């Protein structure tokens, strides 16, 4: 497997390859990259993994949103997209909602952080969010980190290796939103800061190899320092 950095317009292969990612097949059969990205060729498969970009929601994505507005039956969540996401009250409370007796702000106020799933999204319209499945809901405490959404797969890693490594070393609670927002909650604010710095480093160095190892070392050193400092 070889990797190199490509830019828009660069010819990366011909039509006898199977191509995915940020690519375009020209009428003459040439495959062209459409974004700045990492070119990965594995057998007959070409993949351009973008290194810059923005979040476009897809059905099934897990996202982290911040409540910015509400009406009598739904909240509007800022999810780092052109439009806000709509979360209907019953999709959050998981039971019938009577707007004449209750108000949405009993459950979520403006500024609250919610971990939700994209239930439906139509091109050029407001995405619909839901918290009906297990694991989704309001996130309390902790801190939010915002990074470029195209770097999120790297934060999770292959078979979530990176995420597991961070969790194991720091024992922090984490939720990763596909929209580039990460929520962390740890015992001490120092640990949260350590994780934040590690994630910022993943974002910056996402296109290099051996990253998981470097991050593990950095976290281990940091944790050691924090624990030693605590005993004094």
């Amino acid at each position: 497997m070889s990797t190199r950095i490509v830019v828009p317009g660069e010819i990366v292969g011909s039509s006898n390859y199977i191509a995915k990612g940020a690519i375009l097949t020209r009428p003459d059969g040439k495959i062209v990259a459409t974004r700045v990205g990492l070119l990965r060729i594995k057998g007959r498969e070409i993949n351009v993994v973008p290194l810059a970009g923005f979040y476009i929601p897809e059905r099934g994505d897990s996202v982290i949103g911040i409540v910015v507005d509400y009406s009598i039956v739904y909240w509007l969540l800022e999810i780092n997209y052109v439009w806000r996401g709509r979360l209907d009250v019953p999709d959050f409370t998981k039971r019938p909602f009577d707007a004449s007796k209750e108000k949405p702000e009993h459950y979520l106020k403006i500024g609250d952080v919610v971990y939700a799933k994209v239930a439906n999204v139509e091109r050029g319209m407001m995405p619909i969010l839901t918290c009906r499945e297990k694991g989704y809901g309001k996130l309390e405490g902790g801190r939010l980190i915002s990074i470029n959404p195209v770097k999120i797969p790297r934060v999770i890693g292959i078979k979530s290796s990176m995420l597991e490594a961070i969790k194991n070393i720091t024992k922090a609670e984490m939720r990763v939103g596909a929209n580039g927002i990460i929520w962390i909650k740890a015992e001490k604010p120092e640990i949260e800061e350590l994780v934040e710095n590690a994630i910022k480093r993943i974002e910056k160095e996402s296109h290099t190899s051996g990253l998981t190892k470097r991050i593990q070392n950095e976290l281990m050193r940091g944790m050691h320092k924090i624990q030693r400092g605590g005993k004094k």
Partner: protein
Amino acid sequence: MRMSEEEFAEYLRNNKRVDGRDFFDPRPLRMEVGIVERAEGSAFVGMGRTWVLCVVRGPMECVPSHLADPEKAVLDVAYRMATFSTEERKSPSPSRREIELSKIIREALEPAIILDEFPRMMIRVYCLVIQADGGTRTASINAASLALAHAGIPMRDLVASVAVGYYEGKILVDLNAIEDEICADVPIAMMPSHNKITLLQADHRFPLARLRDMIEAGRQAINKIYDLQRKTLKEVYEKIARDIGE
């Protein structure tokens, strides 16, 4: 600096250009990306003494909303010259020329951007001319395509652009302000990898038979600019890889 036409013609008769360049050579190029931290994409392009800063925001909600297109994104280009960019102070209000150039730059970029992936959205491109010495529209196109690629907006190709001039049988590439005033001026923008022209303008008179030669001369300079654009974009990431010692 100003120069009379006789003086200028004298230079050309001696097979020289006013700044000592070869006839087909572009001016010294300088490119940088990611210099504006707040923006999704940004680029600086210097072509000789013409300096342009370009910033890309978006995709964002279309404003005004009646312009929103349900089939594709709207590209909004604002070309402005800084008040200090010219010899005499330029009034900060948008002039007719700036509005026209905004449209021209937009039309040169539109074929390269895959706009139909973002229905009802808007991509904003701001080009600010910091210092003007001829060829501001071509420098703006070069900077804008760099900034768009840096922002991660899907593109068919980068757009590279240069102005080609014609004066009494001679073809000059990448005109500066003095040459621009006297020569016939043909700005060309291309998508080099697809071999397509996205902008071709002309002012003043020149024999149509020479147009093919002029485009060919422009293509050589455009390829040089295109190579530097690609190098500049890759450099951002390659530098990080070098810093950690790979």
